[in-house]
């Protein structure tokens, strides 16, 4: 696979390490009353779609950026790649 790094252009996926669902970006509020349940769902339950899927990859043999890659799990086609830090900053 090739991941089109937003800053560095196309790079072989073997430079990257895959972690999992991009929902892991959204760590629940530990102070919430429902924290126990929120964290259980955050950590363990997955949509696991057959189709478009946003996932986290780490450019380990590159610039050490975490990326959010939107990829079709049926065809492996990648339609979007963004820096996770940008998305995280927009959120926070």
């Amino acid at each position, binding site marked *: 696979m090739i991941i089109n790094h937003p800053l560095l252009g196309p790079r072989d996926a073997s430079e990257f390490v895959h972690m999992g669902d991009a929902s892991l970006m959204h760590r629940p509020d530990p102070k919430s009353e429902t924290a126990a349940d929120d964290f259980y769902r955050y950590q*363990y339950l997955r949509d696991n779609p057959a189709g478009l899927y946003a996932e986290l990859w780490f450019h380990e043999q590159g610039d050490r950026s975490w990326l959010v890659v939107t*990829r079709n799990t049926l065809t492996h086609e990648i339609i979007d790649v963004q820096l996770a830090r940008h998305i995280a900053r927009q959120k926070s």
Partner: protein
Amino acid sequence: MKYSGFKVIKEALTGHKGWKPVWRKPEPKPAYDIVIIGGGGHGLATAHYLAKKYKQKNIAVLEKGWIGGGNVGRNTTIVRSNYGLHGNEGFYELSMQLWERLEQDLNYNAMVSQRGVLNLIHSDPQRDAFVRRANTMIMNGADAVLLDAKGVREHSPLLNFDNGRFPITGGLLQPRGGTVRHDAVAWGYARSADSAGVDIIENCEATGFDIQAGTVMGVQTSRGPIKAGKVAVAVAGNSSRVMAMAGRRLPIESHVLQAFVSEGLKPLLPGVITFGAGHFYVSQSDKGGLVFGGDIDGYNSYAQRGNLPVVEDVCEGGMAIMPMIGKARMLRMWGGIMDMSMDGSPIIDRTDISGLYFNGGWCYGGFKATPASGLAFAHLLATDTPHDTATAFTLDRFERGLMIDEKGQGAQPNLH
């Protein structure tokens, strides 16, 4: 129809006219007591045990394509019960025992070949972990032999003892482990279940559940609605897709695991060899092909195919540990979809929807589990209590912190 050497000779002499279809091709009935979704190894085994052991009647197995077309038809055929945690080991040992009498149970030769499974040891911490595992195995009634470097050399003289990046310092051998002709497992269970009256319905895809007031009443299929007293889901690889039709999310991701086979070679290997430090395991089929594999690709996928980095990684492991196989040529590579669970262990449990039962999350342990999975799932369906060996495989274990995490990798499925 009973199979035997005598029958084969008789048919050979009479032009093979007497062989009958191995299973019928029935039309779906409007209602069944139990509908099993998934005509793979686990679904068919469940049907067999439900009908034969638990004497249940009126059962259907629904298969969206052709039976045995999922992971039972695309794996590396290894059977073993060498797990390190009690929650798993008792179950896999039951499976091993069922494999050992499979041919007699089914009157079908699936070529269960107990030529041993050897896990190589390269370091002291690895030996410590394997000793702990071996003791777990023995406590659960399985067999385990700890070999030193000399013992490994005697068992598998072809390995790279002299020029390896990681020296071989020993091995954990399970002599009863081995391989089974994978497709035949599906056919054998299908034949047996069919003979006990189970309807095996191919080209029949489940497209939805009929759930009313928290109880499942039946399934919608590509061949019309079917009412059911109980619905059993055994579709590992696609568990999330099917359970999403019931509105449920699972602690499971789908990943691709590739496997490889070489051209046929004259006998080379004594049994199954696992080089964990190099992500490579291998056995030799009765036809002579080296059947080998390694890690999952590591990204979520439903594509049933993988990519080159893992292919190369696996072959590097192969050449590192068996440097004579350089000229053996890889003939085919393929990929299967694994239900990778959040702790690397399976789930066999009721769901919170009454009458809906779930079997999945097999990671890449599914093939060897086939008989016990079928038996335990049948037990659950017939008695509404978990089988003694499968009590740990609950859906709520993640919420409660009772994970069965053999590799200690936590909630990251691609690391299990």
